[in-house]
């Protein structure tokens, strides 16, 4: 069966991604409006509380993205599913972006709130940093090249190792620091004002939509890369065959 070659676009967008993209833009505009002009300042943190609107969603999406990578890794090892392999890779890349932003916004926020850019005593900060380095390693293994399925297997094992070791790293840092500055439960203990909470949840949703948008694009890019490699391979084989046929005909 041949695909209808008609209206295929020369980009990785589609109606869905355009809707998602527009939603993200509207969402970010709303967040700026609510975050800077509607949400009140915090009693304790004053206006620096407005940082949570970008910090908390980034942190949550970091862990969502890396969890997806872990699931994708397991699925590759278990089912040899190329689809899941690409999902794991795409999610790790986006996760690293979110993770970097979590660390940067966290430490910018830490300066006025804790009076230091980096606090070693904080469990979540240190754990997130180690996770960040691990996932950089994951992407490094990915980028080293080699046989496609071997790379996928290696990366998947790294993904599983990271996922399994993170709880124990978290625990060890917790015991080590044995105190934590982090807002343990500013969400649940009702310290945050209504509009602050609402804006933060809006942020999580908008970041989630952005994640979906990037995953779709990143997945399609990886898919096109595969097609390109396979296409080159097919072409090379066809060329060799033609050569062989030509030389065979001449002799």
């Amino acid at each position, binding site marked *: 069966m041949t695909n209808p070659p008609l209206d295929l676009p020369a980009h990785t967008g589609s109606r869905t991604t355009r809707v998602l993209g527009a939603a993200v833009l509207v969402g970010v505009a709303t967040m700026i409006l609510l975050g800077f002009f509607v949400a009140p300042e915090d009693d304790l943190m004053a206006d620096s509380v407005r940082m949570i609107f970008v910090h908390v969603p980034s942190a949550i999406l970091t862990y969502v993205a890396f969890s997806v990578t872990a699931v994708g890794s397991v699925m590759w090892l278990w089912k040899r599913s190329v689809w899941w392999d690409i999902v794991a890779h795409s999610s790790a890349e986006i996760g690293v972006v979110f993770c970097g932003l979590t660390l940067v916004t966290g430490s910018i926020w830490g300066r006025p709130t804790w009076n230091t850019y980096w606090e070693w005593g904080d469990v979540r900060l240190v754990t997130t940093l180690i996770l960040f380095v691990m996932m950089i*390693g994951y992407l490094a293994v990915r980028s080293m090249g080699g046989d496609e399925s071997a790379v996928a297997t290696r990366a998947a094992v790294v993904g599983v190792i990271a996922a399994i070791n993170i709880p124990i790293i978290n625990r060890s840092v917790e015991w080590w620091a044995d105190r934590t500055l982090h807002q343990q439960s500013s969400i649940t203990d009702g310290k945050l004002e209504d509009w602050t909470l609402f804006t933060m949840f809006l942020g999580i949703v908008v970041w989630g939509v952005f994640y979906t948008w990037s995953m779709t694009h990143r997945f399609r890019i990886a898919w096109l890369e595969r097609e390109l490699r396979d296409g080159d391979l097919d072409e090379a084989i066809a060329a060799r065959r033609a050569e062989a046929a030509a030389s065979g005909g001449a002799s």
Partner: protein
Amino acid sequence: MLRDAWLVATKDLQIEWRSRVTFSQVVPFAGLVLVLFGFALDANRPVLLQATSGLFWVTIMFVSTLAVQRSTSIETTDGARRALLLAGIEPPAVFVGKSIAVAVQLLAVEVVLLAGVVVLYSADVEAWGLVFATCLVATVGIAAAGTLLGALVAGVRARETVLPILLLPVLAPVLIGATRAFDDALGSVAVDGWSWLGLLAGFGVINVVLGALSYGVLLEET
């Protein structure tokens, strides 16, 4: 399975013994790092004493990447990996054997290093039992995680640089736990060192199981 593991371990150790790389290069390297830390901290006794346990384990972290690299290169040269598989040895046995070999080498380095901190840093060991238990338990975890990641990067270009990026963050709990336990044993910080052993043991068990389960996939496919 245990017999096979033992075979692999003795094979690696024999190769190591004959080449004497551990003794002629890795141990001097570890000693050198100790001396360099001494210079860096300007022979400032109180600071040096405070930092002894941390410096000890940071040095072991560096040494472990060297040991794992050596252990991996034994297998990658001359297609020895394939031969091992063809010999019918189960991958988990290979994993356990290679881990044992790495662990034995690391323990040897730790003994020398321990003498080094006692002599050079005049560390005053208060609880030898805790020191040895920590070395043993921590080393099992380091060797297991290292052997697994070593096999993982075996076929990768630039594996010398990729291995530390992958291994060192995974070893973070060992560094933290073993350092704290040593702090207690050396009497530099008042903490309960034995409770940290639990964490180290947990790390060891998890990584041994993880390695035994996934080593086969890496050995056969990459």
